């Protein structure tokens, strides 16, 4: 229990693999540094081995604890996001502060002075403070802490770069997938294959009607495939395609599909996002009229109020169906395009407050 609490306090990594790497680096780095100090103490300074080992182990354990606290501190204060000119003086200051702390500790706990003076000719030429063991120890420890910080930021930035790259490629993949889904939803395979089936039936019974249907289907498909190229089309052009589409759906649904248009002549020249109305009409049939035994009337109205175009698509829907989100990649995409093009000046609303009715309302400015 206590161990878990301590561990929790010590370990602030999100991923356990990162935590393991971090601790491995900590122990390996300070371990190597300690071994070098040990070698120096025993071989060059002739400190008794047991004493040297105890002191150096204690000091390096303290270094691990201090750098771990430093890491938490740096994370809390978001040092990784700082520019180099802010980071460098802070790192230096921290290194010197921690270095002085451990340098002094080392100086006053070890057998001082342990400096072996050998060359009597050279030594007097060296400034005295460089020979002061307290100063040398402080410098060594400060350098060690400074390197620690440098290595820490080097490794974490490498890792972050790798993670960012992974995320980028995931993002690209998701984007491609959503584009594919959008295209598929625009092509509306259910409609496409059912229409082809209607055409096949008509070829024998009513060749002329079959010919018309093929033309309408071709126009609808071409329009859909080209819709990626142009942003805005006139309402007149969009309505032509909506009519083609509705003519094909009428073949399938027979008299279950009734259509009412209330389009003012003045609105025909207004430019709207391509496929906007078409997607909404498709949705009205797919989620509304197609589910009704007796079918229903689809009403499309468009009018100008001042400089604002209002379009409304009204359709009956099964009362039992929950006001679920209208399967929406197509509709969502339309709404999103509307927002991108016109911002707050345009709005799209799907009103499902009536139990057996769906109302799609668009309002958008007339482009001058």
């Amino acid at each position: 229990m206590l161990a878990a609490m301590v561990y929790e306090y010590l370990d602030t990594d999100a991923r356990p693999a990162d935590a393991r790497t971090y601790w491995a680096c900590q122990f390996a780095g300070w371990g190597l540094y300690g071994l070098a100090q040990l070698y120096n103490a025993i071989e060059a300074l002739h400190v008794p081995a047991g004493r040297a080992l105890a002191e150096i182990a204690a000091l390096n354990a303290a270094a691990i604890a201090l750098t771990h606290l430093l890491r938490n501190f740096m994370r809390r204060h978001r040092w990784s996001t700082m520019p180099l000119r802010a980071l460098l003086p802070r790192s230096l200051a921290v290194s010197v502060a921690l270095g002085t702390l451990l340098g002094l500790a080392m100086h006053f706990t070890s057998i001082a002075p342990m400096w072996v003076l050998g060359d009597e000719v050279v030594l007097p030429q060296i400034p005295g403070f460089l020979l002061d063991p307290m100063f040398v120890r402080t410098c060594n420890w400060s350098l060690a802490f400074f390197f620690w910080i440098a290595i820490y930021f080097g490794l974490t930035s490498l890792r972050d770069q790798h993670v960012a790259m992974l995320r980028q490629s995931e993002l690209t993949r998701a984007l491609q997938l959503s584009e594919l889904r959008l295209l598929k939803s625009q092509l509306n395979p259910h409609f496409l294959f059912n229409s082809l089936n209607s055409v096949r039936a008509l070829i024998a019974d009513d060749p002329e009607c079959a010919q018309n249907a093929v033309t309408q289907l071709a126009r609808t498909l071409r329009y859909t495939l080209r819709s990626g190229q142009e942003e805005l089309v006139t309402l007149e052009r969009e309505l032509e395609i909506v009519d083609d589409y509705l003519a094909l759906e009428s073949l399938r649904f027979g008299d279950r599909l009734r259509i009412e248009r209330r389009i003012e002549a003045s609105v025909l020249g207004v430019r709207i996002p391509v496929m906007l109305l078409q997607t909404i009409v498709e949705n009205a049939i797919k989620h509304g009229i197609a589910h009704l035994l007796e079918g229903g009337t689809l009403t499309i109205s468009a009018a100008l109020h001042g400089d604002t175009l209002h379009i409304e698509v009204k359709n009956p829907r099964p009362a039992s169906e929950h006001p679920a989100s209208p399967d929406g990649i197509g509709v969502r995409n339309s709404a999103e395009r509307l927002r991108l093009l016109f911002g707050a000046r345009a709005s799209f609303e799907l009103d499902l407050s009536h139990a057996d009715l769906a109302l799609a309302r668009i309002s958008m400015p007339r482009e001058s």
Partner: protein
Amino acid sequence: MKAMIVDDEPLARRELRRLLASFPTIEIVGEAANVEEAVAGVERWQPELLFLDIQMPGGTGFDLLARLDQAPQVIFTTAYDHHAVHAFEVNALDYLLKPIEPERLAAAVARLHAAKSHQLQPTSQEPAIERLFVRDGPRCWFVPLQEVSLIVSEGNYVRLHWGKAQPLLARPLSSLEQRLDPRRFFRANRRQIINLDFIESVDLGVGGQLHAQLRDGPEIEISRRQARIFRTLTTI
């Protein structure tokens, strides 16, 4: 073979009817445009085969199957949602993609005739059920009853022991019992009906009951009253 076309689109029905005209073994006895009409049509014409669309107003093709007492042979016809047909567990069914290719239709009909020649013809006036359509949660099955070893009552439902699967059917045991083949299924006790073909051995119990051991299954107690009938049935 009596067949019925269930599709909400008049043109689709007409097209299928024309395609089927070149199959003299298939007699189209009727059409339906939705689940309600289809339920009535099945009642009236007793078709052995349904050409069944999946997406229809007022209910799907699966909804229709769930409402029928006995599942007829089914060939799904669908424009795009064939993945819905794949929702079926275990026994794959035929489906045709619209527009229907005549060759694919011919193959489906041929497979159907091959399957039919294996089946026994029912003798009684009200034919015994051979297959059940079961929808349990998101999964659907066509369950051939001859493969069901045990039927257990669970309130208004029954659980079918069918190999490893144990789907639940929304029907009381008593209503199902009336439509089971009496030569195959036997009411062992208040809660259980066993398939005689699955009985491995029968032991005498104390007080006149019998214990029937089912192949790869549990031991079922045959109540004293039913044991008497069981003896006359099997002349033990």
